């Protein structure tokens, strides 16, 4: 249980990486952008991979009527997420310490993991909602109004995960360093739960 508790203390700390590294990354490459434009999604806002990428993505997207990328003040998520992550890290570490002191059982570890996973799924759902809005809520006076082969208006939702060819752009969306660190941290807490369960089982 001591080993499991240490994992439970360390695991949530990996989430602190989200304050430094981006959670997600979307790259946009095209024939005329051999150095792709890139968007880093941090928990507290969007940043360009290169300094002027956001400005340049907005500049290109205005042709097809997409709204400009949201600023920090445009989305409640960017002010809320850092607080939620902070609470979850504190809570996780506290659970780990109490587990170490023998005050809490491993079930709390799994509980934290479940809560974090739920929040993660909600976060992804929210993120996808925004992607849908960003890619489909188009200016009716857009310069270029393109249609699909079936006649429906073309939309430009970037993929949540993976690669999509969008007009002349190759759009690739993947978790970034902060996201991977979060994933790793969560796996550690899952392992903590597993080891906690195993030590309990061995004792009985």
């Amino acid at each position, binding site marked *: 249980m001591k080993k499991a508790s240490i994992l439970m203390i360390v695991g949530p700390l990996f989430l602190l990486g989200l304050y430094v590294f981006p959670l997600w990354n979307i790259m946009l490459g095209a024939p005329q952008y051999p150095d792709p434009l890139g968007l880093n999604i941090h928990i507290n806002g969007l940043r360009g991979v290169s*300094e*002027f990428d956001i*400005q340049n993505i907005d*500049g290109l997207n205005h*042709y097809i009527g997409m709204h400009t990328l949201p600023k920090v003040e445009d989305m409640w998520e960017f002010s809320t997420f850092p607080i939620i992550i902070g609470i979850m890290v504190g809570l996780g570490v506290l659970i780990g310490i109490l587990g170490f002191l023998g005050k809490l059982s491993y079930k709390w570890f799994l509980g934290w993991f479940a809560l974090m996973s739920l929040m993660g799924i909600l976060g992804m759902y929210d993120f996808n909602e925004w992607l849908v809005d960003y890619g489909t809520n188009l200016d009716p006076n857009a*310069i270029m109004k393109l249609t699909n082969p079936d006649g429906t208006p073309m939309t430009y939702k970037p993929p949540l995960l993976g690669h999509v060819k969008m007009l002349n752009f190759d759009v690739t969306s993947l978790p970034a360093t902060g996201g991977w660190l979060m994933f790793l941290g969560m796996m550690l807490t899952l392992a903590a739960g597993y080891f906690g369960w195993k030590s309990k089982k061995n004792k009985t």
Partner: protein
Amino acid sequence: MKVKHHLILTLGTALLLVSCGQQNQSSNGALSSSAAEKVYVAPGEQDEFYAFLSGGYSGNLTVYGLPSGRMFKEIPVFSQFPTSGYGYSEETIPMLNTSHGFVPWDDLHHPDISQTNGELDGRWIFVNGNNTPRIARVDLSTFETAEIIEVPNSAGNHSSSFITENTEYVVAGTRFAVPVPQRDMSISEYKGNFKGALTFISVDPEHGHMAIKFQLLMPGFNYDLSHPGRGKSHGWFFFTTYNTEEANTLLEVNASQNDKDFIAAINWKKIEEYVNNGGGTKMPANYAHNVYDEHSHTGTTTMKDEVLTVDPTKVPGAVFFLPTPKSPHGCDVDPTGQYIIGNGKLSADLTVHSFDKMIAAIEGEKFDGEAYGIPILKFEDVLAGQVKSGGLGPLHTEFDGKGNAYTTFFISSEVVKWQLGTWEVIDRKPTYYSVGHLMIPGGNSRKPFGKYVVAMNKITKDRYLPTGPEMEHSAQIYDISGDKMELIYDFPTHGEPHYAAGCPADLLTANSRKIYRLDENRHPYAVTTADGSKVVRDGNEVHVYMSTIRSHFTPDNIEGIKVGDKVYFHITNHEQDFDVPHGFSILGQNTSELLIMPGQTKTSVWEPKQVGVWPFYCTDFCSALHQEMQGYVRVSPANSNIELKWSLGE
């Protein structure tokens, strides 16, 4: 594979047949597949070296890649350049100011890349204007002209613009001797009265800013070319001379009478010390110093009224003459700094002087008389050796860093490879035709990159498809990595290259700017915010503060302009994306278009002469909506009361 060989053979035979009666089978060497592989830079790949070729009478500097021979850019320096608006825009007109007024052209020679410890450092490239003596500094992060300084008391600024091995000085010597200071006198009184000014221009190590440190007023010979000492000879500078006869007419005969002219050896460190200790004489002068500020995107002219001159006889031990046969042209110093090569253009031989021997002769005070008070060393005492080349008309020599030298022969139209020290000729290859300069990247430094030599020819004739009587000059690239030179490519150059400078590509690529930052734009008429555009009238001057972004001008409708107004279009490109310039032109513009880089501001003056509604548009295909990037200016009669107004999207 076999099929391919057969194909090449058949092709080769066919070409031979086609070229029957057209002579020179040797050029077929360039058709061999190995040569093709050596110069082939596949699509998407980049060249190994930059080559900066002077444009001669184009007044500009051209940028090429080696070994492909592809041209990347023409950098406007001394000539107006309507492509970008250089010399037409309000910001760049000052760059071409001189004491003779606005001089929109020059004859650009001799590029030289800045050095640190005798090796190329890739910060700047210096070039000289030959006709109205000027030295320019081109910034190698922007590839734009950053500064031009006029050289007073000089005429035919030809033994220029060579730099010392830590870029302490860029040196400008006069080809024509002239009265100093200029005055009204009889031409026939030239001999003994005219002077030859050798100008040492200090270069600020941080910003590169140039200032004339001193001018050495030498006897009135013609100072043809020069090169710095390096390594052991650092601190010296060497100039070839011709017309030591001091003839003032029919020079082709009268300046070719002396068996030997001189190489002038200048101990500039000694003179620098003399000047720093208060030596020299201040002389009234009048010359322009034009500096371009990258943040205000604006050039400014400052007129200078004084120059410090030095009489060489007042600084003992600083200046000596080395007798050198047959009106030497190129004056080249090998990478070790030991050998000074005089390319006697009217002879078959090269004369190589030894720096060590020169110092020994000076210390032994073994002089062979003097000229105007300047000691002449004995030819035999300073001679290291002579290259019996068998060629005719040697002009210039470069080095490969492996102990070999390469000399161009104009008359016999060839490049000759010879060995330093043994003076043996190793190889010779013809050029097409009558080669002038040659260039090995870093070939004028302590550390040459001896892989290619580029021969720049004066005569083209039949090398390319005919284009009437006037055509571009030709250049050839030789692979010099082996013992024998191999002709691998042939390409036309722009203008007339007088020398070139090359460097490994990676010395410059990382520093090459992609955009100018809008938040660093300090142009007084810049519009740096989307809503900052305005139009302001001041008497009959109207200032339009205009911005551009894909794909519109702000504003794009302007009314209230009157015939007789002087309209300044100050255009700021709001793009911050690589390679998205916008252009600006307006009907009836008496200057040129503007090409405005991202983050930059440029100004064009328009003086409408006719009432009407006149369009302006973007000249650079900037986006899919480039064609829509246009606007109107309403011009009313001079006495009308139309209110000034401007708009976008109303």
